[in-house]
């Protein structure tokens, strides 16, 4: 039963035209990466790596924003959800199954992006072997896994928002704002807590701290620098990030299920 919903979700994603647009965009950006790397004097490997990873982050983000959100939001808006709910499918199972399907789709996209990144980095390496630096391909793969986890987390948040938002556009806005806040929350907290700016009101500090705990700290999942310079990541650090991600996503999905159970589908 869950497998059926998961599979249909995955299929819907694959058949979505936006996926092809995003693939094209990512390919263009990889070509751009090779061109830009040629203009760098020393740290060629680093530039190729972090441009490739930036492309991967951006493309995965587009998939979440334009494909994942659409799937659940459309399901509710167009009432196609009636089929599943009029059968003996518990609402919690439905949410879980949808999430797994979206995760599968995201996983496939990130895997393709990984292949593209590795190809791009290898091309640049062939062109400028002596300037390549200490790029670690293994860490590039780990960085992609990290991107996958991050976007999975964002997907779970988008599912929560679609339960309470009045339209798919509102869900879109809430999700992108969450990503923006999540990406900057660590920096902002550091900035506010540093002794440099003395004229910060205590209220601001509280708000920043609240946002830090409420929104996911996505900086934990940004491993571009590690991959670009071969800076090793402690297993404990990685483990903690994974645990944090899983915990946060589970909490969000649980809340989603709680809200969904009570939701009236007129």
């Amino acid at each position, binding site marked *: 039963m869950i497998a059926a919903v998961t599979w249909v979700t995955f299929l819907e994603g694959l058949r979505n035209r936006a996926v092809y647009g995003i693939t094209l965009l990512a390919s263009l950006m990889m070509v751009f990466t090779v061109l830009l790397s040629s*203009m760098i004097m*020393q740290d060629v490997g*680093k530039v190729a790596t972090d441009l490739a990873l930036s492309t991967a982050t951006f493309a995965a983000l587009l998939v979440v924003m334009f494909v994942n959100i659409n799937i659940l939001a459309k399901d509710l808006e167009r009432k196609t959800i009636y089929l599943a709910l009029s059968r003996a499918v518990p609402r919690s199972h439905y949410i879980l199954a949808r999430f797994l399907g979206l995760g599968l789709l995201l996983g496939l996209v990130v895997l393709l992006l990984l292949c593209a990144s590795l190809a791009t980095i290898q091309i640049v390496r062939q062109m400028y072997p002596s300037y390549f630096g200490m790029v670690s391909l293994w860490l590039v793969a780990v960085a992609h896994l990290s991107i996958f986890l991050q976007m999975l987390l964002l997907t779970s948040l988008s599912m929560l928002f679609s339960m309470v938002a009045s339209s798919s556009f509102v869900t879109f806005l809430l999700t992108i704002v969450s990503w923006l806040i999540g*990406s900057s929350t660590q920096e902002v907290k550091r900035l506010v807590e540093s002794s440099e700016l003395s004229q910060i009101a205590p209220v601001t500090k509280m708000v920043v701290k609240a946002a830090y705990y409420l929104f996911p700290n996505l900086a934990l999942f940004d491993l571009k*620098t590690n991959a670009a310079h071969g800076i090793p990541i402690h297993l404990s650090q990685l483990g903690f990030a994974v645990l944090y991600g899983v915990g946060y996503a589970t909490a969000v999905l649980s809340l989603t299920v709680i809200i969904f159970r009570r939701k009236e589908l007129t």
Partner: protein
Amino acid sequence: MRSKFSFVPWITGSVALIVYLICLPLAVVERPRHEQLFALPPKLLRIVAFQFKEAAADMSFLNASVFLGGTTPQHDTRRYLPQQYSWMYNTLKNSVALDPYFLDPYYLMNSALIWDRYKQDEVNELIAKGADKRTWDSLLPFYAGFNYYYFLNNADKSFTYLTEASKRSGGNPFYDSLAARVAYKANKTEFAISYLENQIQQADLHGQRGKTRDLERRLEVLKAIRRIEIAAESYRKLFGKPPGTVSELIKSSLLLSLPSDPYGGSFYIDQDGSIKTTSNMTSVKKEK
């Protein structure tokens, strides 16, 4: 009855397209050359770049690099304009603020700003911070160490960074020798001569012809200064007082010939007794 085929939309479409294509190149707005790519304070820039800090750093650096490649220094002073220095400084500062692990901006800062004596304190501090971040890199602590002694007269910091460079490079004897010179408060000109000779050697190894020429010119100036310094020291020992001008040294036959400055300036003795030249190489002027 067949409907009438109208050419009107085809004609208006073609004419409009032609007008557009003609006007497009003429309608380009000329951007002032010194427009900053990111005009925000570094900390704010980091926040606004979200997860694309490194890519933004790359773009900022490329902006500086392209600018440098396309701009020539003023013919008379052999320097760039003050606003050009300021622009480069800000652009490179933004670049390292966004990605402190990126090597190229530090490199450019060192060659374009430090030797042109622009904001040497601030720039070298950035290079030093870069050395702290890039823990595997021996080049940055080497640059920082050299600059601290030669330009900023900070022997302690210089020694710290040069020994760090040596440690990171697995005991490069050249870095060791420089560190030793700092420890013994060696003559700064000889210090710089040693540094330049090493740089020329490295450039030759990598086949960087253009760079070698620039470095050799600098080396020539410093060697000339050294000769004058040695003569001045002998003068002081002989006559009990330091010489006033370079011509005095020549008159007293302590300096055999007047060295020429490949940068076109003339050598003179400054109030504090140090030998300087009126040209770009050792210009007294400090740009703000």
